[in-house]
């Protein structure tokens, strides 16, 4: 006990002396568990690579908790230099012009090389302003993909190497899986909002909201109650009634992963960052990876999917030395080696083209089949106004509304059209509220 205490004291003393010389850069993040450890490792490596700056990562809980904590700290003038904000908070951060130090400006002020073109274009598109400037540094970006259980496919008499490409095939395969008794349900999905509504719209080149999905200004209105979305939600309800689809719960849909791991559902759709979890939990079966399905009668070549995950925002109100440190750290983070390591460990996308190329030359994608599906899906074709991304204020609450309306649909209280109409109407009220407040 005494030993451990004295070691701790020693560690504190050592870190205190080393931080006397170095400028501290606080970094609030929302990465728990394995991801958090990896993130800390990155910070430690940066700190060891030079002696002028010390990045101090602090875990602040979930994404919404981190954002709220940062906002509260900003109001009390205690803000961190860097905060990790999830993609649905982007609208909120962009509107807070006086609070944010845009990354492109920071890098220019500090004379650090920062080439927008070196980043994957869908990632840049999601996080830049209307003039193409990147406001926050992309750090962990993911996109949803399909995971399936090869063993169950085989039991159901399906080819385990062939994943369903279209929704018609998802239905057909699910029927075979359920009727053969290979699994209790055909498919489930995490993130109903993100995967089955937002990405569905992008994939089929349908607008989610007016004014280029909100990129064109705060006057945007939702319009995700179009024919395609209504058709898809109605199908999900039909498939639920037929026992082909099982609802995985609101927000991230935690039950979806549980049902997939327990081999109750043969297919699930989830973030590409769920890959590590699938590999760790699929002890008794072989998982397969595939792009998200689409409706072939709606679009011949599906568009790129859109991203989720988070970026790093720099907050105003710190001294010059701190910002120099932030810029140096961001340059470090953008290095292909650092990026590729993070991407391969977590399943998040490689943010830069260089990191992707490095992975290729390392032979990572041939050794790990399926690991490049997310990248291929997000980079296919040219992004359109509908597949570039989403930018809406109050979007965290809007997602809650979409979840609630989906639950009403699943419970049979509303049909697909009613549920989506109501979600759009309630969402628009929040958009007007946001417009008025900013």
């Amino acid at each position: 006990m005494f030993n451990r205490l004295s070691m701790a004291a020693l560690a504190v003393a050592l870190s205190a002396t080393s931080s006397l010389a170095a400028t501290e850069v606080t970094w609030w993040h929302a990465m728990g568990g394995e991801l958090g450890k990896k993130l800390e490792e990155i910070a430690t490596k940066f700190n060891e690579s030079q002696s002028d700056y010390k990045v101090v990562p602090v875990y602040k809980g979930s994404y919404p908790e981190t954002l709220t904590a940062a906002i509260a700290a900003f109001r009390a003038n205690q803000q961190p230099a860097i905060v990790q904000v999830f993609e649905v908070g982007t609208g909120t951060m962009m509107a807070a012009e006086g609070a944010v130090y845009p990354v492109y400006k920071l890098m220019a002020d500090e004379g650090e090389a920062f080439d927008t073109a070196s980043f994957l274009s869908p990632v840049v598109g999601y996080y830049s302003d209307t003039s193409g400037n990147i406001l926050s540094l992309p750090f962990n970006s993911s996109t949803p993909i399909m995971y399936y259980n090869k063993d169950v496919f085989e039991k159901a008499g399906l080819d385990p190497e062939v994943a369903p490409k279209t929704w018609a095939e998802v239905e057909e395969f699910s029927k075979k899986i359920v009727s053969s008794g290979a699994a209790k349900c055909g498919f489930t999905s995490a993130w109903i909002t993100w995967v089955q509504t937002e990405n569905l719209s992008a994939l089929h080149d349908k607008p989610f909201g007016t004014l280029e999905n909100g990129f064109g200004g705060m006057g945007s209105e939702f319009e995700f109650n179009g024919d395609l979305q209504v058709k898809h939600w109605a199908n999900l309800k039909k498939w639920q009634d037929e026992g082909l689809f099982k609802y995985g719960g609101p927000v991230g849909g935690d039950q979806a992963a549980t049902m997939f791991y327990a081999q109750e559902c043969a297919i699930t759709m989830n973030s590409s960052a769920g890959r590590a979890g699938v590999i760790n939990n699929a002890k008794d079966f072989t998982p397969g990876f595939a792009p998200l399905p689409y409706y072939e009668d709606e679009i011949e070549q599906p568009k790129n999917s859109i991203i989720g995950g988070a970026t790093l925002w720099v907050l105003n109100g710190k001294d010059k030395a701190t910002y120099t440190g932030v810029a140096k750290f961001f340059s470090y983070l953008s290095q292909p080696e650092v990026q590729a390591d993070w991407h391969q460990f977590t399943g998040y996308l490689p943010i830069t083209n260089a990191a992707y190329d490095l992975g290729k030359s390392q032979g990572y994608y041939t050794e790990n089949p399926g690991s490049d599906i997310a990248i291929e899906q997000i980079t296919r074709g040219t992004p359109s106004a509908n597949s570039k991304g989403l930018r809406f204020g109050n979007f965290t609450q809007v997602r809650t509304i979409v979840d609630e309306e989906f639950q009403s649909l699943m419970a049979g209280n509303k049909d697909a059209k009613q549920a989506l109409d109501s979600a759009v109407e309630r969402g628009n009220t929040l958009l007007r509220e946001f417009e008025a407040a900013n």
Partner: protein
Amino acid sequence: METKKTTFDNRLLPYLLLAPQLFITLVFFIWPAAQAVKSSFEREDPFGLSTAFVGLLHYQRLLSDPEYLAALSRTGVFAVSVTVLSMVLGLAFAAAVDRLTRTGKVYTTLLVWPYAVAPVVAGILWWFLFNSTTGLMPFVLEKFGIDWDHDLNGTQAMILIIVAAAWKQISYNFLFFLAGLQSVPQSLMEAAAIDGSGPVKRFFTISLPLISPTTFFLFIINVNYTMFDTFPIIDATTVGGPAQATTTLVYKVYQDGYIGLNLGSSSAQSVLLMMIVMVLTYVQFRFVERRVQY
């Protein structure tokens, strides 16, 4: 009993003695409450960069918002159910334990245990038990032909949070009721027994009226508990869903303010909630207390 009147020679001393308590109340209660009242009249972006006075706008919106009104009546259902359930069961257990002579202490200890469980842990326990994929209860209920899925069925979700919230509170009520029952004079009970009334009759005609101050006290405490302290239970089990079926007033304050960052509306909601509880407590003291015999 005669009460002694203490006088202070020093005029300042009583205020000095009161100061720490006043300071704490001021800093931790009055000040935040005043802040909430202030921001309930304002519209502000989350970062506090621009603030505009909007008067009663938030209140007007809330009182004409069907979702808020639904949350209000939902909170009523929740508060009444939890209070009745936990008080009736607490009293039943207390009456049962009161009749035990030797094992009473053991049962008391066991029955008080749930109170030591933090609300959020209690929530997670019940969430595990009733989890529709991995839980034990849905498996058992299926045998009785009940398809349990509180992720989609709003009524079941409500039942779940009522059970979880009441379970925790039973211990508390039990302890107070037991103390109350034990202070009922034994001579009265014996006299009634000699007159030929059975244990049930004795309970309803003697014990229950005599413990009415305890019942009244617990009633107020329980209503306050369901209004404010049940937040962790809801957050750990249903997160206010499905489709807002378990979004009570206090949970809505959290959702709109903390998740939605709509500080103005959220403040207005806390002010309203505060007023509701104040009115309720006033009504209880004014009307219910008259019927309580001390």
